[in-house]
């Protein structure tokens, strides 16, 4: 397993190099001089010249990339145009908040989506199955930022009005207490709940049709044992994959959720930075999220190997 993990990490290096090259090139998409883009439009000619020299923008592209990577490996992602703080500090301050939101949403999604999928799969074709799958598809179709706004209307406008309260039932924006988490986590988790329910149902239905399940039933085993012991364990693999992939999607979705609820994470930082054309921060946040996504995929692969003894990794 350790050898496999090391091999998998080594295999991720070309992807990570590609990701960093992509992010490095992105600033060249900005019309005009990348030095001005990176220093800010209000920067003095001296500052622009300094940035040009620091980043070696007059050097050939491959030398520039090596310089860029050298700085990245030392934890230097440049300086924010807006705050003049190091980008790495800006990200380090906000990343834990985004991870909190993302992990909480992932947990909620798994805790609701998987049981819902199992319940649907044990009653295929029933009203419950059809109804829950239609709701799940509606959940996938729902824009998360819109759901966020609807939750805000419900908890900060409608319910207080009905109950004649002077303040919202839940804080509509901000960060700090568990109450602040309820709406953003619900909005962010909704799509994942739906997706995990559908995936679990499909995977369980496939397994429940296998011969060994029929054998288990023929042996007179309790239905609960058949479903949870025999079927679920074998249906888990695609579910684990989808949970892993969902982590990346949720990180992307956090950009929208954090914008709706003014959650001070890296998603919000990214959107704010776009408004200020703070390109070093945009590059830094995108890079960190992408690296997080790549590492999660590796973790999923390793979990796969751990969960399924049939898979032989050389």
């Amino acid at each position, binding site marked *: 397993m350790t050898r496999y993990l090391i091999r998998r990490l080594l295999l991720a290096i070309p992807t990570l190099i590609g990701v960093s090259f992509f992010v490095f090139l992105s600033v060249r998409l900005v019309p005009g001089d990348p030095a001005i883009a990176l220093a800010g439009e209000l920067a003095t000619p001296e500052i622009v010249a300094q940035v040009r020299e620091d980043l070696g923008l007059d050097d050939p592209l491959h030398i520039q990339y090596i310089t860029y990577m050298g700085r990245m490996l030392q934890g230097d992602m440049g300086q924010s145009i807006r705050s003049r703080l190091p980008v790495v500090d800006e990200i380090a301050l906000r990343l834990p908040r985004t991870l909190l939101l993302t992990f909480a949403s992932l947990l909620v999604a798994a805790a609701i989506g998987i049981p819902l999928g199992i319940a649907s799969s044990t009653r295929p074709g029933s009203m419950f199955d059809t109804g829950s799958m239609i709701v799940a598809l509606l959940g996938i179709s729902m824009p998360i930022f*819109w759901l966020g706004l609807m939750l805000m209307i419900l908890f900060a406008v409608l319910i207080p009005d009905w109950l004649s309260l002077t303040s919202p039932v839940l804080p509509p924006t901000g960060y700090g207490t568990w109450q602040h988490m309820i709406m953003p986590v619900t909005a962010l988790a909704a799509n994942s709940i739906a997706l995990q329910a559908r995936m679990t149902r499909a995977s369980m239905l496939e397994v429940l049709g296998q011969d060994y399940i029929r054998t288990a039933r023929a042996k007179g085993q309790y239905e609960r044992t058949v479903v949870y012991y025999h079927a679920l364990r074998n249906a888990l693999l695609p579910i684990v994959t989808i949970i892993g992939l969902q982590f990346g999607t949720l990180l992307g979705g956090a950009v929208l959720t954090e914008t709706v609820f003014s959650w001070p994470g890296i998603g919000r930082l990214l959107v704010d930075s776009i408004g200020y054309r703070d390109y070093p921060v945009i590059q830094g946040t995108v890079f960190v999220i992408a690296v997080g996504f790549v590492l999660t995929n590796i973790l999923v692969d390793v979990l796969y190997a751990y969960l399924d003894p049939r898979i032989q990794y050389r």
Partner: protein
Amino acid sequence: MASSSSVTELSESSVTSSPSMKLPQSFQRIIRNPMAIIGLVIVLSFILIGITAEIIAPYDYDKSNFMLARDGPSAEHILGNDELGRDMLSRLMYGARISLLLGIMSVGIGLSIGVPMGILAGYFGGTIDLFVTSLIDIMLAFPSILLAIMMVAFLGPSLENAMIAIGVLSIPIYTRLVRSSTMGVKQDLFVEAARALGAKNRTIIVRHILPNVLAPITVQSTLQMAVAIQAAAALGFLGLGAPPDVPEWGNMLQKGRTYIRSAPHIVLYPGLATMMVVFGFSLLGDGLRDALDPRFRK
């Protein structure tokens, strides 16, 4: 996928014409699937609304009336008025056109780059395949909406750039799908037979490979429309899509969020419209997959 069925169909078919999917049968399967029909009806309704917006919209989508600003639904304005007193229903109808166009254009971009890349990688293999798969791996290393946000952030916010960004993020999906389908089809006997008869690579790709990867492409494109429309609304909501006065649904949501206390209807309807059209394309896509993909047939 469709390619896997082609092996068994070979014995009945001539070697020069590759087995194509049986459309009448597939059509019957779609007709028999009530969820797919619901999806089709929703999609066609939105297409019809988008095409005929000029005729059926009760008001000019751009005409402000500050006396009616943020007014709720009424007999004259069924869905109420927005923050500038413009008719919500008319704006939503024009918005349908923009969202569908955004979806079609970005799916077109994804198809026109992703499909050739997938076919070349799957058919020729070797260095081309290694290069293409590495590129896909890198693109898939970004959560999709993030890639679109990053591209628009650097290209500059506009409707065209939003289309390009959403189109680009669907490229790896098409490439991966078509690559694997091509790898399956190129092993089939009818391709070997065509090659033995002296057919050139270009002929084999156009006449034998492409028709056999059409089914998965059709399914994916329908599902991708849903993804593209949702992504376009997200970019609009972040202020990275159409200019502020354009009645794009995400844009309308962004403008309306300031007034959720006094005029919640401004954010309610554009979100509902987005959800319904995405739901329609998802149902239709699922139905098409059930009908065209033998693995999903009951």
